[in-house]
């Protein structure tokens, strides 16, 4: 086993870090890398995390992805109706994708083009409005580009910090702990709550990220490198959680 972590493995651990400090809530990661990340977080540094699988089960053991009928230790049942109720209770942290995202963290997964006359019909609003106004929502974007990181999203499905701010008290549960992409890690820890570059993945430059971002990114002077996976995290990812290497199809270095 190579000790050098691939870009996908760096991304998995960067996504896992989104859940640090969450405690005993439901982590609901959507997509291959976030699903790996939730499991890494629980196995490494967030042991009380409650993890939902891609159907309706809360699963207590490490389950490899892409392996049919892998044994599961089921600790709970959470059909869609219950999942929505958990969202409203606030005891949840979801990690979603974004077709577009702007500097305040407004997300679009509904459609591209003018409202009511979409050039591209995407999924729809899904649970994004309810997620973002009720509990922590992080994002993973596998291909960081100016088409994703845009000045203005065409439709606001998940709300960003400017929209939450405008809600006043009603926006008090809104939080976007982090955005992870194939190039770096981002947060909103600025006075205006605009997107800030927190760290660059090994081998990526700040200029590269700025060029791939369609708005002016907040770049502190002391941007560090994204932390590398530990040996134990690498073992977990490679030998237990993703022996088939699905992660490398999501993100290439």
């Amino acid at each position, binding site marked *: 086993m190579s000790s050098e972590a691939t870009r996908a493995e760096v991304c998995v651990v960067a996504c896992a870090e989104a859940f640090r400090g969450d405690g005993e809530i439901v982590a609901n990661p959507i997509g291959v890398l976030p699903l790996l990340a939730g499991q890494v977080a629980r196995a490494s540094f967030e042991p009380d995390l409650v993890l939902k699988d891609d*159907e*309706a089960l809360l699963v207590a053991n490490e389950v490899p992805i892409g392996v049919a009928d892998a044994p599961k230790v089921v600790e709970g049942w959470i059909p*869609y109706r219950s999942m929505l109720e958990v969202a*409203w209770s606030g005891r949840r942290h979801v990690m979603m994708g974004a077709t577009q995202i702007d500097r305040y963290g407004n997300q679009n997964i509904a459609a591209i083009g003018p409202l009511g006359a979409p050039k591209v*019909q995407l999924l729809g609003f899904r649970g994004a*409005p309810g997620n973002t*106004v009720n509990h922590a929502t992080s994002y993973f974007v596998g291909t960081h580009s100016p088409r994703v990181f845009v000045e203005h999203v065409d439709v606001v499905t998940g709300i960003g910090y400017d929209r939450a701010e405008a809600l006043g008290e*009603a926006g008090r549960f809104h939080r976007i702990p982090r955005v992870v992409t194939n190039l770096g890690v981002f947060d909103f820890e600025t006075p205006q709550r605009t997107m800030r570059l927190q760290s660059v993945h090994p081998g990526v430059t700040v200029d590269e990220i700025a060029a791939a971002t369609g708005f002016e990114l907040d770049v502190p002077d002391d941007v560090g490198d994204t932390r590398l996976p530990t040996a134990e995290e690498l073992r977990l990812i490679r030998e237990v959680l993703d022996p088939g290497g699905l992660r490398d199809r999501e993100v290439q270095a």
Partner: protein
Amino acid sequence: MSDKRATEDEVVTELESGMTIGVGGWGSRRKPMSLVRAIARSDLTDLTIASYGGPDVGLLCAMGKVRRVHFSFVSLDSIPLEPHFRAAREAGAVEVTEYDEGLFYLSLQAAAWRVPFLPTRAGLGSDLFRTHPGLRTVRSPYDDGEDLVAAPALELDAAIVHLNRGDDRGNAQYLGIDPFFDDLFLGAARKRFVSVERVIPPADLLDEGPVQTLRVHRYLTDAIVEAPHGAHFTSCAPDYRRDESFQAEYAASAKSSEAWDAFRTKYVDLPSHADYLAQVGVRER
């Protein structure tokens, strides 16, 4: 005790053009596809469909049956974007009323409880207020005075759902992992139609699963259709998985009008569900 057994075509005679019809299931899971195809081959038109959308929405759009869709997503799960729905939207052929997933749940619940709305934060600050005409907020009458979204009751003229087992009185049972929102669709509807994999005697229902699986009660049902593989090609756990290769064929039929005509002739323009199963090559039990 009345026998509520009916055929797909008998259900269709209870429907009218212009109706708002709710469809149970979720994405490409446990969709009442034999009823959807019966509607697709009927002369019904100008329908409003309300659904956690999958191929039910796509197929009816492709058949030109749909004026408006109430939805929060339309997806084939393993194929994230429903290609027929997408084509209809991008051609401007169908109107939409968009929802958050939870807002949709509350709108069904409000209709089922006969209240005009239910309050929620879901939707605040989002563009749902631009894509859901008539969506309103409501101010809490209590000391907090908070403004919340008023999820409007989504009253349905009819609902169609598919479950695993049922009896001839209209009780029905789900045996999979998720009841989805089927009982709420029925509760929100004026005319309620259930299809099931198998109709069995009431005394045998508990041999199939625990009492918690008896989710649809006969006071929520006007007719019950026995439709083995009635959810095909969507999944109907634990009876069968999604037919992924058939779903891929369905999705590919959105690529051209020739491809769609061929698919439609082969799989939709058939006299009955039995003919469909024979065509697909699914054997009845």
